[in-house]
């Protein structure tokens, strides 16, 4: 449906080819979260890997930082329609977390947990194979608290609400268990290229 009088401001061809449908490019890094920013102290920080209800591995901040560190530079896409190109992250690949725990991915579904009680569900296959990490640095520095520091999940090929801020654990589940926003009208999977913003998209 053409909107009378709307011309629009098109990005250049190289930008538009990298933008999923309905997205626009921003140079800022907007902050969006459902509640206050929690102040998470790395002195007491823990990251727990669970299979169903059972914890199978746990790392302190120092232990987690001693795991193999990888870099990922990716375009990210927020469901509120901004995209940001070439964001540079460093952290521990989910593959390396599993290897350090000495397990293979045990189930097809994963729920990420955060310090503020936030949860988000991601199919395990979208976390492994080098697709996702628990990021500890952004642009070479500790991640600011507003952006999810000290550690956040990074699943850059899905809408960015899946990249849980203030992460403190991954839990493998037998069934797809909806997380915080997924229970509140947002899509269970969230592929920006298929524009899966809301539940029925």
């Amino acid at each position, binding site marked *: 449906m053409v909107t*009378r009088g709307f011309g629009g401001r098109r990005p250049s061809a190289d930008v538009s080819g990298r933008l999923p449908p309905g997205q626009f490019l921003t140079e800022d890094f907007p902050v969006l979260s459902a509640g206050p920013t929690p102040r998470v102290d790395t002195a007491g920080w823990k990251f727990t890997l669970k299979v169903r209800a059972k914890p199978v591995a746990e790392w302190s901040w120092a232990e987690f930082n001693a795991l193999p560190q990888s870099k990922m530079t990716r375009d990210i896409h927020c469901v509120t329609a901004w995209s940001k190109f070439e964001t540079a992250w460093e952290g521990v690949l989910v593959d390396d977390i599993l290897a350090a725990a000495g397990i293979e991915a045990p189930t097809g579904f994963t729920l990420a947990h955060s310090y503020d009680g936030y949860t988000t569900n991601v199919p395990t296959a979208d976390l492994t194979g080098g697709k996702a990490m628990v990021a500890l640095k952004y642009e070479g520095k500790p991640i600011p608290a507003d952006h999810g520091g000290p550690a956040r999940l990074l699943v850059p090929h899905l809408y960015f609400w899946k990249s849980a801020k203030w992460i403190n654990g991954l839990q493998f589940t037998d069934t797809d268990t909806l997380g915080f926003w997924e229970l509140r009208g947002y899509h269970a999977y969230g592929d920006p290229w298929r524009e899966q913003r809301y539940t029925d998209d």
Partner: protein
Amino acid sequence: MTDISTPEPAYGRPARWQPATITGITRLTPRVMSFRFLPSQPFAYRAGQHVDVRLTAPDGYTAQRSYSIASAPEAGEEIELTIEKLENGEVSPFFHDVAAIGDEIEIKGPLGGHFVWSVDQSGPLVLIGGGSGVVPLMSMVRHRHASGSQVRLALLYSSREWNEVIFREELLALDDLRDGFDLILTLTREAPKRRKDFGRRIDPAMIERTLSTLPRRPALAYVCGANAFVSAASDALIAAGVAAERIRTERYGV
């Protein structure tokens, strides 16, 4: 942020793109205008929810943004979207400079299941808004009034200047009712006009003063505005003894 309530199930039909006709346009401040839309398929919504708006150019290029609903769920089939004109914006200048009554615009909604409030939730309630962050809060204030609720509600609203206070006359009139709704304004670039208002940026003392108008600590707090504003307000709420899980925030992206 763990929700103290379980999310309410979605109700009504799923949100789909649909044309809506602009039925009214009102300038509220130098930078803010309200647009009334009549959806081709009207929908029920909750105070605090938003809709997505999509504009399409003749060649198929589209731009979409989310806008909070300012009207109360009781207001009927029309919804009011209150839009601030952003310099260098793409969608908001279209609304301010081009859109006219009778135009059809694609919308999708209602959306959002967290930053919502209804009078059957417990009170008291504190709402803190900065600039156009007052828009979803206005839906809550209007919802309380339209439903005849006695829930105690305090609104702390920060604006740059008196003539930029969105919904000013309506808010002042509601404040004058003294029916359990309290409005506290703070102006960041002007002296306050009323005795109970402030003339500075939001700070913990101001939040404490706002909370003191309520009979007890709020059951829920809603904070909306730019990120720095929301951070300052929610940190001050926590310092004043409001548990983090009772504070819901909505921060402006870009």
